[in-house]
């Protein structure tokens, strides 16, 4: 008994399917100049969904008991070989841009503002997590102080952390995540004043973003109309970085 099986045309069709697959799978392909920019552009769709559909500022991240802190909470900065220190003393934080009342805050002023302390889980884009305790002032309090105008839709956070190539570490944030009640300007970690390796004197912390969005070694916060980039975001990491 005979039975119809594959003919040449079927194999051609199979080839049409297999071709793009093997091409795309060819050794760690980022999409090349034709597709990679499109993938990055599409990432903006995910940013929009992440910010407007999946995220709510009424949703607080779960807090953990202090006993669950991670022992070797990783440190990260781009300055080499050692952690950066502020160039000019005394350090202060400039908050300006599209705001009605720009301010320059000293550490003393920042520490006098109402503080929050929480112990929560940190999510790194690499896939690991760590639990730590952070103390600082809610960014929303500082923003209430400077009164952003309608034109202030994004935040640009600058730092004095520079890689050996001279690129400064900075981030761009959406206003919504900045206003989340657990987004803080932190000056203490695990009940101790922030050390240089952790972003001293002041760093951004928030449980609603991945670690690379949390600017350390802060110098300036600028409210902007256009979406600022970021150190990792400019080279292809998702801009929102929301969890």
């Amino acid at each position, binding site marked *: *008994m*005979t*039975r*119809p*099986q*594959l*003919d040449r*045309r*079927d194999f051609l*069709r*199979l080839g049409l*399917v297999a071709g*793009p*697959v093997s091409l*795309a*799978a060819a*050794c*760690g*392909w*980022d*999409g090349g100049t034709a597709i*990679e920019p499109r*993938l*990055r552009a*599409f*990432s903006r*769709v*995910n940013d929009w969904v*992440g910010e407007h559909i*999946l*995220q*709510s500022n009424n*949703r607080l*991240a*779960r807090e953990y008991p202090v006993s669950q802190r*991670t*022992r*070797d*909470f*990783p440190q990260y900065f781009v300055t080499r070989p050692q952690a950066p220190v502020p160039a000019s003393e005394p350090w202060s934080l400039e908050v300006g841009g599209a705001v009605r009342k720009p301010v320059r805050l000293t550490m003393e002023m920042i520490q006098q503002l109402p503080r929050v302390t929480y112990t929560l*889980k940190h*999510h*790194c*884009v*690499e*896939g*690991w*997590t*760590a*639990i730590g305790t952070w103390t600082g002032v809610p960014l929303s309090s500082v923003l209430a102080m400077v009164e952003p105008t309608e034109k202030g839709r994004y935040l640009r956070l600058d730092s004095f952390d520079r890689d050996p190539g001279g690129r400064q570490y900075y981030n761009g944030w959406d206003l919504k995540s900045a206003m989340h009640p657990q987004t803080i300007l932190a000056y203490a970690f695990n009940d101790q004043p922030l050390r240089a390796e952790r972003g001293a004197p002041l760093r951004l912390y928030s*449980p*609603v973003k991945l670690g690379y969005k949390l600017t350390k070694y802060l110098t300036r916060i600028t409210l902007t109309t256009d979406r600022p980039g970021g150190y*990792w975001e400019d*080279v*292809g*990491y*998702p801009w929102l970085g*929301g*969890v």
Partner: protein
Amino acid sequence: MDRENQAAHPDVTASDFSRGDVTHTAVESAEPPAVVPAGRPAVKRHHWLVRLCHWANAILLVGMIASGLQIYNAYQRFGPRDMRYMVLNPVKLLHGTPSAPEWARLGGWLAGGLNWHFTLAWPFVLTGLLYLAYLALSGEWRSLLFRPRDIIPAAQMQLYYLRLRKAHPAQGKHNALQKAAYTSIVVVGALAVLSGFAIYKPVQLSWLTTLFGGYEYARYWHFVAVWVFVAFTILHVVLVFVVDPASLRAMITGWYRGRFPSHD
């Protein structure tokens, strides 16, 4: 119903189902597809929507797994930072090291892998939903969904494959083991998508992440789904060629001229 189908095709006999009969049939492959061989009418088997979703899914799954392995490579362990879950890692078993080989990765680096993964995820989920919607609306789900009444036929089918039973059990479009496989792979697909969301937004979707046992375990279950897909695909392709090669053409052209022509 199954009996009736077999009776309607008297040329399908028990000997027809024996293994030796399957392989040698190159004679007819030169014929154009429109020609129906004597005694074996072509039956329309797969709607174009099903074929589209099937092949799109095959390509997208390769892309999702390869970009997923690129992401996995940024942290090749499971568990929180200062703890290591002692879980089975197929990459380590197959490759010797926990690092996924370059040929199996897509994206070049972590950001590239993320961008591929989060882009392909859309058509992956959408074709999955389209496929399920088609099954639900067309009634085709009846020939695919594994139900309690399929348990005994599945056992009989297993005995046949183990050569402990001589006669091929009667079947409709799919045998009971196929139903089990095609039903469970849809469930695994849904779990892969849900565990993906659980590690994509562990704070915003914390209820979902908690259902998977927390972020670290959700990440592991997402990884396990990969190996279920890989094992399924290998078995699926092997069985197509060994048991019913005509089903490959049916998934390409829609027309089936193999030895299981019933369409219950």
